[in-house]
C-alpha cells in the first residue's frame, strides 16, 4: 500500500513538472500573465489613478476583485460557525452573559 501511494505521488509530481515545461520562464516580462492588457496591465497602470491607493495589491484585493475578499470574509465566518458547531459548547442560555462560570477560585495553576 505504501509503495502504491509513493508511486502515485511521484506520478503527481512528474505531471506537474511536465506541465510546467510550457509555463513561462521565471521573471519573464513578456509572460502571458504579465502582458494581458485588461488584467495585470490594467491593475498596474490604472490602480493608482482609479483608487488613489498606492498599494496595488490592496487595490486589487478590496476593489477590483473585492468580491473574492467578500467571499474570504464569508469563509472566515463559516470557519468560526463550524468550530462552534463541531465542538460541544456549553449552551449559551445555561451560561448567561459568559462571565466564565468556571470555578471562581483562582487556585494556583487552576487549569481545567
Amino acid at each position, binding site marked *: 500500500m505504501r509503495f502504491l*501511494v509513493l508511486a502515485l505521488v*511521484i506520478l503527481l509530481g512528474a505531471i506537474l513538472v511536465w506541465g*510546467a515545461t510550457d509555463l513561462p520562464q521565471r521573471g519573464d516580462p513578456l509572460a502571458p500573465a504579465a502582458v494581458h492588457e485588461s488584467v495585470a496591465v490594467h491593475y498596474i497602470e490604472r490602480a493608482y489613478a482609479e483608487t488613489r491607493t498606492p498599494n*496595488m495589491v490592496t487595490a486589487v484585493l478590496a476593489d477590483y476583485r473585492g468580491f473574492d475578499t467578500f467571499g*474570504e470574509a464569508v469563509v472566515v465566518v463559516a470557519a468560526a460557525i463550524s468550530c462552534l458547531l463541531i465542538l460541544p459548547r456549553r449552551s449559551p442560555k445555561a451560561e448567561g452573559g459568559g462571565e466564565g462560570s468556571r470555578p471562581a477560585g483562582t487556585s494556583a495553576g487552576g487549569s481545567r
Partner: protein
Amino acid sequence: MILDFVLGRYPYLFIALLLMIGVHGMMVKRNLLKKVIGMIIFQTALYLLFIQGAKKEGASIPVYSPELGAEAGAYMNPLPHVLVLTAIVVGVAITGVAISLLLVIYRRFGTLDEEEILQKMRESA
C-alpha cells in the same frame, strides 16, 4: 534542454517536491495531526506556485511610486499576491476546522492514531 529548464523554471521543482511531501504525508501518516501537517505543506506548495509567477525581471514591488510612474514593466504583477492572500485565508479556515475535529475525536476516542480509532469504531458498532 535540461539546463535551460532548470535555470528558467527551478521554482516548479521545489513546488513539485513540496507537493509530493505534503500529499504523501497526508496519505501515509497514521497520526491524524500529522495528516493535517501534511495538508498544510500541500497548501504551502500551492501558495508558492502562485507567488513565483508574479516576478518580472527588473520590476519593483507592486506599490505605486511617483518616480516609476504607472508603467506596466516597472512593477510586478499584483494579481498572484491577491490570489495567495485569499488562498492563505481559506487554508487557515480549513486548518482551524480540522483541528476542532481532531479535538472532538481525541475527546471521544482518547487517541489520534487512525488504526486505534477504526478499531474502537468497529468495537462500538
